[in-house]
């Protein structure tokens, strides 16, 4: 078990190193000068040279690369070219904003999706199965900006039930995360983006759960459990659902990773200052330190969650044995 975890950890670190290097190269391949966004290119060339020197962009590329790697290891992710703020503090703040939005959205989607998936498989070909599949696929096919816009139009602009956006009312920034969480205005503002995110992702866990359940329900041990006279509820949840969860667990870890970086549209629509918006802003602004930091953060999250999933598998499925070569 320990060998396996160690091996996976080494693979994870190598992958992260590769991602970090690719990010460095990719951002420097972008057309246009880094200083272009910060300083108007129409200004004196001396001004641009001044900016480059301030942020080390006048150094040879290999030297910039080694400084970058060194900074990554020491967790000194530098300062934003645009705001001069520390990258770690900028990312940390935005990360929590996104996490709040995504966790509520994913909790909604996983709870509803898994619950519906179980019932749809149990009542296969029934009205819930057919109706659930159709609704889930409609939401998945509709881009989040359509769902979000419709929600905004009806519930916000027409009926005035929810605010149009933001995390808190203008001018009332809370001093801490706790203060934000106990602010009723925050919960009013998170409802619509949560529904938008939840609806978009709903079909995936729901259909995966349904398929896994159907597979499990055809197994001999389920027949045996039924033959033993166990209550249907116990067969469904304790014997079938638990085993069918494996697929959804893998999926959930991937969904969290993508959800953190993939909700640019929802964040823009609801003026939610999160990671997605930061990625777009910083990439467009050639703000290398922030852009690299946000993408790297995303990579750490996805790769880290995959690592945790591998370990979680061992716990969820006792049939999985660990050998020196990995899973058997």
């Amino acid at each position, binding site marked *: 078990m320990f060998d396996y975890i160690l091996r996976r950890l080494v693979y994870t670190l190598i992958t992260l190193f590769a991602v970090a290097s690719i990010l460095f190269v990719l951002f420097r391949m972008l057309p246009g000068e880094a200083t*272009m966004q910060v300083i108007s290119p129409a200004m004196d060339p001396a001004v641009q040279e001044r900016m480059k020197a301030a942020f080390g962009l006048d150094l040879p590329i290999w030297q910039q690369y080694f400084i970058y790697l060194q900074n990554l290891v020491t967790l000194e992710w530098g300062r934003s070219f645009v705001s*001069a*703020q520390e990258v770690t503090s900028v990312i940390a703040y935005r990360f929590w904003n996104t996490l709040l939005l995504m966790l509520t959205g994913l909790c909604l989607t996983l709870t509803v999706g898994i619950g519906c998936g179980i019932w749809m498989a149990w009542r296969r070909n029934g009205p819930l199965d057919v109706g659930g599949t159709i609704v889930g696929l409609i939401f998945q096919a509709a881009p989040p900006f359509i769902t979000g816009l419709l929600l905004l139009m009806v519930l916000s602009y027409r009926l005035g039930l929810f605010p149009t956006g933001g995390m808190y009312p203008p001018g009332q920034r809370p001093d801490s995360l706790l203060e934000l969480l106990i602010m009723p205005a925050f919960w009013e503002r998170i409802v619509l983006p949560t529904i938008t995110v939840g609806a978009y992702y709903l079909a995936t866990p729901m259909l995966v759960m349904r398929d896994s359940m159907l597979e499990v329900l055809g197994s001999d041990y389920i027949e045996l459990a039924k033959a033993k006279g166990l209550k249907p509820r116990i067969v469904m949840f304790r014997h079938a659902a638990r085993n069918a969860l494996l697929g959804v667990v893998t999926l959930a870890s991937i969904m969290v990773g993508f959800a953190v970086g993939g909700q640019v549209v929802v964040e823009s629509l609801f003026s939610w200052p999160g990671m997605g918006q*930061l990625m777009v802003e910083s990439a467009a602004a050639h703000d290398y330190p922030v852009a690299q930091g946000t993408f790297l953060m995303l990579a750490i999250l996805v790769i880290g969650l995959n690592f945790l999933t591998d370990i979680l598998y061992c716990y969820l499925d006792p049939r999985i044995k660990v050998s020196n070569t990995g899973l058997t």
Partner: protein
Amino acid sequence: MKRREFLKRTGALAGVAAVSGLPSLAHAAGKPVESMTLLTANAGFDPVRPEMGRLITQACKKIGWDVKLAAEDYNMGIGKVFNEKDFDMFIVRWTGRANRIDPETFTAMMHHRDGNYNKWGYNNSRVNELSDAQQVEMDPQKRRDLVLQIQETIYNDAASSPIVYPSMTNAYREDRLKGVVPQVGEGIGSLWTDIAATTTGGDGYIRTGQTSPLKNLNPVSVTDSNEFKELRMIYDRLLQVGPDGSIEPWAATAIKAVDSTTVDITLREGMTFHDGKPVTPADVKFTFDYHKQWKAPFFISSLEKFESVTITGKNTLRIKLTAPHAPLMINFFAQIFILPQHIWKDIPEKVNVDDVLKFANENPIGSGPFKFDYWDRGKELKVSANKSHFRAPKCAGIIRVTYGSHDAMAAAIEAGECDRTRYILKPALVEDLNKINGIVGKGYSSHGWYGFMFNHLRGPLQDPIFRAAIDHVVPRDVIQAVVMSGFADKGGSVIAPANEFWHNASLKARPSSTKKAREILAAAGYSWDSSDRLHYPA
């Protein structure tokens, strides 16, 4: 460049080309005019520009000239023009920033051979001479005469083609906000509205919407008008550009030119920074010296003209310039922010960075009419009224909120969550908002313009006659009425009518007429083949 001069040069070039193999227009004699590309920002950045581009390219086809439209990412386009100089023509919006009230930007910087903006190779000796002369002419009336002549020469040369002078389209809640003061080029997003407006209820804060996020709070590294607009609430300047574009005293009660290279400044008495320390001439001297020491990007070229700054009295300073420089009043004294010496003297050392440009200044302390509360990057900035300021705001403060899009901002105004816009709101949305009770959607006078710019070093665009003909095909009527929803005037001179003092009123927009353009080209020897394709003069 005059036509005769142009033809002479092309003739001379032909000789050079024969030896060196360089391309020349003389080689093109009688040949079809080559196809060219018109570069614009894409609709995501500015919905108006690709529309203008589409109309202009269609109009060019009507005179037998094939022009293709390339709507690209704004930054890539800017890079092609200003860094790589790889473009044929482009459309740009020269916004009506406060400092552009001074004619320097639209004359010398854009049209002098060595102007920083002049990446398009325009070179007219008369413009160069007049631009140099206006820079050192300290008498405003005499300077004005020179500027009027520059405009006329640029116009006759069709060096740049102002398409329209767009209004600053803003919207505000009339039922929430009283006493807005529009400023030329800035509309109701002005500092004058910040200090004069009041709210009719609530907490007294004016909720101000903007679609671009605030990027930086460092007054030394600031270069963008977005940041200038917010920092000027927190930091005082010596002068301000007034609502009508004139210069108004601010922290300085007087700035007097003793002679062409000596300027005396009298500082207002009784001013204090937000931490209670007094504002002194030493702070002003420190500000100049500090900006010079650290080569503050926006002020580098102005500060190069400073020979010395001396404190001459309790509230007075004397600046000695290396040479006369007329644009200094608006481009420098009405822009630079007064820094508190007791805070900045230890920066950057005290904040653990090696360069002041890396200082985030997350808790700015100035002496301006508003005190900093907080900045939530990407979301909002909150400042509260400094009631002890000599121009104390009437409202409780300003909350600047960043919205994801123009539509989101318009929706927030409609829902009553936002009181006014700081900057441009899409004309179509302004029209819609104006129909709602309690909301005013309006275009305010601006000295900015949408420009159709030419690469003077390429193909037919080297010929002033050709450029003038092209200027005639620009469908200004349609652009004004349809694309700009009426929130614009047709463009003529490079200095807009809104900038009354400097504008040359005799220069009118060339009327849109394909027939006229064809006549001009035909008179200059251009011809058309059987498929109506335009050819160079034989």
